[in-house]
C-alpha cells in the first residue's frame, strides 16, 4: 500500500521551507519551491531543485493561492505538497483539494484538520474522550452584547481567541468588562486580516499557567506515539519566543500522563502525521487541553534535538503510508534543547517590527548549535511576512549546559542592518527565574523592562565613536567627489579589496 514520494512542492517560504527542502534532499526527493515576487532571491528558492513564481508579494496573492499552488504542483510533476506551518497548513479545504488533484497532502487528513481546527468541535470531542479542557463558550461570539453576557458568565479575566489559526494573532486578554468591546473589535480585525475569518470565541483565562505541549506522530497503520513535551511559556503577546524540551517542571510520571492524553486526543480525531496537543498547566500541575495544532510547529527542532528523530522525514514517511520505524518504548529524551526565535523587532521600542536589508549575517556555529534560518546576507526583511527570520536552537548535556550554550550562541550571532530580538533572548537566558525554571506565561510581562538590557561599556562607546567617524569621513570623501579609495574600505567585501591589489589588512 505504501507509495514512494519522488517530488515535493513546498508551499511555504522562509526558514521552514528551507528546513523541509533540506530533509527532502537528504531523502533524495526532488524539491519544487514556490515564491512570490518579493522572494525571488530568497534561500528557499535558491536551495530547491526548481522554483516557480506564483504571484506578487502579498500572501493572499501568492502563498495563499490554493489553485495556483495545486496547478504548479501538477505542472511541475510533483507527487506531494508540504504546507509547512502557517499559510495553508491548517486549511482543510486545501488538504482536500490537494487530494482531489491526485496529490499527497503531507499532513493530517482533512477531517482531522476540520475537527481540531474548529475550537468548538475540538472541545466537545475532548470532553467526550475525558481529556480535561479549560471552561469557556462552545460557539463564536455573534455580537458585542452577547460577548459581554458570556464573559460575565465565564468570569473575568477572559481570553478572546480567533476561531481560525493561532500564533497569538486575534487574541486578547480582557480583565475588566469595560475593556471588552474595544478588545473584541481589535481581535476581530486582526483575525480577519490574518486568516480571512473574524470569528472569535471566549474562554476562561487561566491565571499564571504554563503552556506545555506534547508532540505526537501517528502513522496510517494506527500507531500513535508521543515525543515528550515542549515548554512554551516564554511568550510575548501570546506569541512563543523561547521554547525548550524537556520542561523543567515535567517529570517522567507527568510526561507519561500528558503523553497519554495527547495520544488519546490524536486518536479521537483519527489523526495521521505529526501534530501537537497544547496544554495549559496550572500551579497544581493539573493540565487542560488548549488546542491541537494539526501541522508541524515552529518549535519542532527542540523535540528533534532531544529525541534524535527528524520530524519532517517522519512526516514524509507517514505520508508514504509507511509505518513508523519505532514504538513508544524506543523513544528517549537525551540532554536538553532550547530554541530562541530570532525576529526583526526593536526590543527597546516595544518590539516594533523592523524592516530592511540584512547587511551582514553570520549565524553562531559549533557543537550543539543549530541555526534554522530563512535569510542570507543581502536578504530583505519586508512588511509582507512574519518578522521571524531564524530559529537558534541549542542542545546541551543538561538544562544549565543548554542555557550557557544559548548565551554563547546569542553572543556569537552576527547580524547587521536590522534590529533583532537577540538582546531580549539574552535577557531571558540570564534571568534567575528562567534559570530556576520558575516562570509562567506572564514571564515577559512581569519581568522584562527594556531598561534592564545591558548598557554598552565605555570602551564599546569609544569603538562606536571611531566607527561612526570612519563612516562619516568616507561619506564626506565620497560626497566631495574625491578618490573613492577611501570610500570603498569597509563597505566593500573582501573580493573588491583583493581586486584592488590589497589584502584585508
Amino acid at each position, binding site marked *: 500500500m505504501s507509495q514512494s514520494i519522488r517530488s515535493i512542492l513546498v508551499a511555504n517560504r522562509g526558514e521552514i521551507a528551507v528546513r523541509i527542502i533540506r530533509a527532502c534532499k537528504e531523502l533524495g526527493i526532488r524539491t519544487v519551491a514556490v515564491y512570490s515576487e518579493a522572494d525571488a532571491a530568497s534561500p528557499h528558492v535558491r536551495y530547491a531543485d526548481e522554483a516557480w513564481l506564483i504571484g506578487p508579494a502579498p500572501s493572499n496573492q501568492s502563498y495563499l493561492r490554493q489553485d495556483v499552488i495545486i496547478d504548479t504542483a501538477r505542472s511541475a510533476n510533483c507527487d506531494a505538497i508540504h504546507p509547512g506551518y502557517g499559510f495553508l497548513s491548517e486549511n482543510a479545504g486545501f488538504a482536500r483539494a490537494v487530494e482531489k488533484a491526485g496529490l499527497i497532502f503531507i499532513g493530517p487528513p482533512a477531517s482531522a484538520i476540520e475537527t481540531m481546527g474548529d475550537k468548538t468541535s475540538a472541545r466537545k470531542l475532548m470532553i467526550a474522550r475525558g481529556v480535561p479542557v479549560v471552561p469557556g463558550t462552545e460557539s463564536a461570539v455573534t455580537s458585542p452584547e452577547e460577548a459581554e453576557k458570556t464573559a460575565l458568565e465565564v468570569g473575568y479575566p477572559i481570553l478572546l481567541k480567533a476561531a481560525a489559526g493561532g500564533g497569538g*494573532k486575534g487574541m486578547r486578554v480582557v480583565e475588566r468588562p469595560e475593556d471588552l468591546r474595544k478588545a473584541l473589535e*481589535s481581535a476581530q*480585525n*486582526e483575525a480577519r*486580516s*490574518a486568516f480571512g475569518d473574524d470569528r472569535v470565541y471566549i474562554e476562561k483565562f487561566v491565571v499564571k499557567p504554563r503552556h506545555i505541549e506534547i508532540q505526537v506522530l501517528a502513522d496510517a497503520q494506527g500507531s500513535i506515539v508521543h515525543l515528550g513535551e515542549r515548554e512554551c511559556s516564554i511568550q510575548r*503577546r501570546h506569541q512563543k519566543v523561547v521554547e525548550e524540551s524537556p520542561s523543567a517542571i515535567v517529570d517522567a510520571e507527568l510526561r507519561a500522563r500528558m503523553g497519554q492524553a495527547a495520544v488519546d486526543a490524536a486518536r479521537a480525531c483519527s489523526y495521521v502525521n505529526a501534530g501537537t496537543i497544547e496544554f495549559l498547566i496550572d500551579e497544581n500541575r493539573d493540565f487542560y487541553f488548549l488546542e491541537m495544532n494539526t501541522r508541524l510547529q515552529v518549535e519542532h527542532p527542540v523535540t528533534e534535538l532531544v529525541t534524535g528523530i527528524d520530524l519532517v522525514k517522519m512526516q514524509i514517511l507517514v505520508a508514504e503510508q509507511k509505518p513508523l520505524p519505532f514504538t513508544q518504548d524506543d523513544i528517549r529524551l537525551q540532554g536538553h534543547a532550547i530554541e530562541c526565535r530570532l525576529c526583526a523587532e*526593536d526590543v527597546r*521600542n*516595544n518590539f*516594533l*517590527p*523592523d*524592516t530592511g536589508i540584512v*547587511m*551582514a549575517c*553570520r549565524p553562531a556555529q559549533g557543537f550543539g548549535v543549530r541555526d534554522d534560518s530563512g535569510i542570507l546576507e543581502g536578504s530583505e526583511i519586508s*512588511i509582507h*511576512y*512574519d*518578522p521571524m527570520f531564524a530559529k537558534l536552537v541549542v542542545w546541551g548535556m543538561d538544562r544549565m549546559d543548554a542555557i550557557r550554550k544559548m548565551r554563547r550562541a546569542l*553572543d556569537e*550571532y*552576527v547580524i*547587521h*542592518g536590522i*534590529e533583532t530580538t*537577540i*538582546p531580549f533572548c539574552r535577557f531571558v537566558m540570564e534571568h534567575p527565574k528562567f534559570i530556576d525554571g520558575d516562570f509562567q506565561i506572564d514571564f515577559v510581562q512581569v519581568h522584562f523592562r527594556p531598561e534592564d538590557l*545591558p*548598557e*554598552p561599556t565605555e*570602551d*564599546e*562607546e*569609544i*569603538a*562606536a*565613536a*571611531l*566607527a*561612526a*567617524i*570612519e*563612516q*562619516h569621513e568616507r*561619506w564626506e570623501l565620497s560626497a566631495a567627489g574625491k578618490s573613492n579609495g577611501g570610500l570603498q*574600505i*569597509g563597505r566593500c*567585501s*573582501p573580493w573588491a*579589496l583583493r581586486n584592488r591589489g590589497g589584502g*584585508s*589588512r
Partner: protein
Amino acid sequence: MSVVYTVYINGREYRVERSEEDTLLINGKPFDAERYVVNDGVMYRFNRKSYATYAVPTSDDEPQYHVTVNGKGMSVELEDEKTALMKSFQIGKATQLQSATVRSPMPGKITRIMVTEGELIEAGQGVIILEAMKMENEIKAPSAGIVKAIRVKEADAVEKNTVLIDIS
C-alpha cells in the same frame, strides 16, 4: 591640521581628536587602537580586546549613525568643529530638542489616530496605531509636548520614516 569631533552617545560626550600624524586623542589622552577591515564592518582592537563595529547613517542631512558594537546597538551623533562653530551662532542643540516628530518606524497602514491637534501629550503616550506585519503596533510619543500637526489620516499607507505627527 588636526581634526576634532565631539561624539554624543547615550547622553555621554567623547572628544575625539586626530592629529596630522594620525595620532589619536580621546578626551585629551593618547589612544592606541588597531583597525581591521573585516567582512562585516570594521574591527578595532585596544587594550587587547576586539570590537566588531558596523555603522549605518540614520539621517540624510545630520551626521547621525546607528552603530553596532559586539552586538549592542547605539545611536551616535557627531559634531565636527565647523558644526560646533555654526551652532554657537545659530539655534543651539538645546532648542532643537524641544521640538520633535513622530515617524513611522516601518511601512504600514494607519489604523487609528489617538490624539488631536492641540492636545497636550506625555512622553511615551500612545499616539497612533500602525498595522504592519499583520500586527497592530502602538506608536508612542518620543517626548512630551503639544500636538502641532497630524500629517496622516486613518487608512493611509505610510513608508518607513514618514513623519506622522509634529510635536512642539
